[in-house]
């Protein structure tokens, strides 16, 4: 039986412009989709493709402008069905903080059943069960503020489970989480699906989509691809044309096939790839140097010596954020900074421009202690530009131009100079003159973020530090921003420190990678050296690029492949040299 069934579903967002005219924006455009009971379906699509709008229809948070949608056999347009629909199709949203109502976990989970009028003894039993299902029972009496993002999302899932739903709809539940949190959430979903709950998962992460029974790809409010993950991802070119990604091994196979190697096109996982290669009798016969390059660290620009930082010193909340950190960043380097949530990344970068100070240790900028002279703080903050996480949340001016001008104006520059810098910065992030007079609040997510980055760039910093600049963006906007950053580094010679959760992003562009773990430096070296320790990276909760994991898996099977291959092009070269002409 179909749990969700839509027939020619259309939804128009209606807004008013300054002249009070109605502007219609069609988000979903004639969607026909049926989701059977018990299925795990992943919905993909770039931002603005209509996925979220569709999700909100399943929960009757939005009602169709045209066409209809039935949930559990009930038409959402019929008002008396609404509470039954919301009970049977629960919903989890992206931002964990904005869906938590209570200050204690068990009261939070109880909120749904309380609204449904469930008797109190039954609520207690349901709360116990729900917390057990998401493996959070021991936090029953804790405050949600104390939990990690992944734990908060599991609480949100428990909150839905306590309503005894048939289906859970999740709108990018992992977008704001680190790899550990993401794994926790996805494992929970797989488990619930096994118990017969229908899962509708909207995501930007292809590796999550690979785990689903079915993948639906949305574009411009329509369903453009629909099928098993293998069916979808084998169409590498089509997926890329929709601004989406495929898993690295799938891309590798695609590249190999293009060069005439006979290899299946529907491989998604490392295990499958390893099996295929073993079956082919793959051996590393050719001498191959991998990515090993001699790397010379340039003259030091930022030096950190013995830095220790403790939050809430001598209180019950005392927490060591940084422990005796010693690092040197060279002029003109592009550094990738990686580590799980709470590893001290954010605290470390706030020391680079003296926003946070510590009693122990010091930070030198071009050989001078940045805290030695308080009157130089402004200058330090101009020289070391810091772009915070979700920087678009700090936009405040009436126009894009004025907002970007905020930094330069604070530096006390002349009007002409400010104008020049603003234009230059906006051009650099690809915002044309037609955008200057727009309100920053009417831009798309990716555009807002680029404006926010331009706001820091306009100060012409020597060092640009970016805290997860691609968080929550779709693959297309992500690549755009990463491209901008790479260009700033290459063309303007800016030293860049890029904080990210994604090893794959970082491995593509970083000169060196700094891995933080529990407030200490774990490794600080060139990418090839860092990825030699794939197993260690996994141990401390980080994701290595899929190609590194593949090489590691091959080595486990006794095949001698270089340790330092982490990108598809090099891997393709290695496999091609050894497989060309071999057939199964």
């Amino acid at each position, binding site marked *: 039986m179909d749990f969700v069934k839509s027939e020619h579903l259309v939804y128009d967002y209606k807004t008013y412009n300054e002249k009070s005219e109605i502007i219609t924006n069609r988000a979903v455009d004639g969607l026909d989709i049926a989701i059977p009971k018990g299925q795990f379906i992943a919905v993909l699509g770039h931002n603005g493709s209509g996925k979220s709008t569709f999700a909100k229809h399943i929960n009757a948070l939005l009602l169709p402008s045209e066409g209809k949608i039935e949930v559990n056999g009930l038409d959402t347009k019929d008002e008396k069905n609404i509470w039954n629909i*919301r009970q049977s199709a629960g919903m989890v949203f992206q931002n964990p903080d*904005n*869906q938590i109502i209570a200050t204690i976990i068990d009261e939070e989970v*109880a909120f749904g059943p309380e609204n449904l009028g469930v008797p*109190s003894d039954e609520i207690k039993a349901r709360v116990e069960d729900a917390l057990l299902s998401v493996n959070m029972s021991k936090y029953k009496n*804790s405050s949600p503020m104390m939990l990690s993002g992944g734990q908060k999302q599991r609480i949100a899932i428990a909150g839905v489970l306590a309503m005894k739903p048939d289906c859970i709809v999740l709108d990018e539940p992992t977008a704001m989480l680190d790899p550990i949190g993401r794994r926790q959430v996805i494992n929970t979903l797989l488990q619930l699906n096994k118990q017969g709950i229908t899962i509708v998962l909207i995501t930007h992460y292809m590796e999550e989509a690979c785990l689903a029974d079915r993948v639906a790809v949305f574009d411009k409010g329509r369903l453009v691809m629909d099928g098993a993950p293998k069916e979808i991802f084998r169409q590498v070119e089509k997926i890329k044309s929709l601004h989406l990604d495929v898993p690295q091994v799938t891309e590798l196979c695609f590249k190999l096939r293009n060069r005439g190697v006979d290899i299946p096109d529907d491989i998604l996982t490392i295990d499958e790839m390893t099996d295929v290669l073993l079956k082919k009798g793959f051996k590393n016969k050719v001498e191959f140097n991998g990515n090993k390059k001699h790397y010379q660290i340039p003259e030091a620009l930022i030096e950190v010596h013995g830095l220790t930082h403790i939050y809430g010193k001598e209180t019950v909340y005392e927490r060591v954020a940084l422990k005796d950190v010693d690092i040197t960043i060279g002029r003109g380097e592009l550094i990738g900074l990686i580590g799980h949530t709470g590893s001290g990344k954010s605290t470390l970068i706030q020391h680079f421009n003296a*926003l946070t100070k510590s009693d122990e240790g010091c930070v030198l900028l071009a050989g001078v202690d940045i805290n030695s002279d308080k009157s130089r703080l402004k200058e330090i*903050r101009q020289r070391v530009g810091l772009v915070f996480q979700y*920087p678009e949340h700090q936009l405040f001016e009436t126009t894009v131009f004025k907002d970007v001008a905020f930094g330069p104006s604070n530096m006390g520059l002349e009007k002409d100079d400010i104008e020049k810098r603003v234009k230059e910065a906006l051009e650099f992030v690809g915002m044309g003159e037609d955008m200057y007079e727009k309100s920053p609040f009417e831009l798309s997510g990716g555009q807002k973020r680029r404006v926010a980055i331009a706001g820091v760039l306009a100060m012409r910093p020597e060092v640009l530090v970016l805290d997860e600049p691609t968080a929550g963006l779709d693959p297309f906007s992500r690549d755009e921003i990463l491209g901008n950053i790479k260009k700033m580094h290459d063309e303007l010679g800016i030293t860049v420190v890029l904080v990210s959760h994604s090893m794959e992003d970082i491995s593509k562009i970083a000169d060196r990678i700094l891995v933080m773990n529990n407030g200490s430096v774990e490794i600080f070296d060139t990418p090839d050296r860092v990825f030699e320790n794939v197993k260690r990276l996994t141990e401390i909760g980080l994701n290595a690029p899929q190609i590194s994991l593949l090489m590691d898996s091959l080595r486990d099977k006794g095949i001698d492949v270089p340790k330092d291959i982490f990108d598809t092009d090099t891997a393709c070269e290695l496999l091609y040299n050894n497989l060309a002409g071999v057939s199964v």
Partner: protein
Amino acid sequence: MNITIGQYYPTNSLIHNLDSRIKIMGTFLYIAAVFIAKGVVGYAVCAAFLALVIRLSKVPVKMLLGGLKPIILIILFTVMLNIFFTGGKDILWQHGIFKISVQGILLAVKMAVRLIMLVMGSSVLTLSTTPIQLTVGMEYLLKPYKKIGVPAHEIAMMTSIALRFIPTLVEELDKIRKAQMARGADFDTGTLAQKAKSLIPLLVPLFVSAFRRADELAMAMEARCYRGDINRTRMNELEMHKNDYIALAAVLVLVFLVLALRLVWGL
């Protein structure tokens, strides 16, 4: 952060497990007792009662003392006022309108003790009761007034959401402040007008964010079938147990004792 209000200290204690209605009423009665107390003995009785409650609540004294920090200035001001401006028989020192007398010092000490006991007493309430329990208690106590149009449920829900989001917004404000400082904003120097203007880059993003959060929260609440007070139950329906009656009796005894001390013995 030193916002003790709304900061719940999770533990399992006799006080934590009391009915929130009793705790709210109890706190009001205790406050009444502190105001009734006149002499040293009265104060001692109140202090002993407070000490007993703190002990039973298992809340660390350190946290309670931390809650006093924001009102230290008020206490000091009150003490100064009382020391210098209370007239009395036994003048120790005098200069113009300023005089220090034994009675003045005594009064000052009394006022300080009274303030400290009030703040600590109400802190025990917020530290031992989750905001939700607190608001549920409020809702129950307000219920009789629903008939005359007091929106008891709505007030309670609004209060608990406000309490839930205070720490989130404080964190957010800190982040915005740092981000604008990274762009060269200066919040500390300048004239009053400049300072006021420098708040715009803080307040605009904070309000935008608060509205965005409100919007998302409302959607999340709707998705979980929230529809006001209609057909709603509670996981922890309030029920009076033996301990609750004992607690209520204990507070009443305190009030009567302090009243008797004052009226009968004048202590």
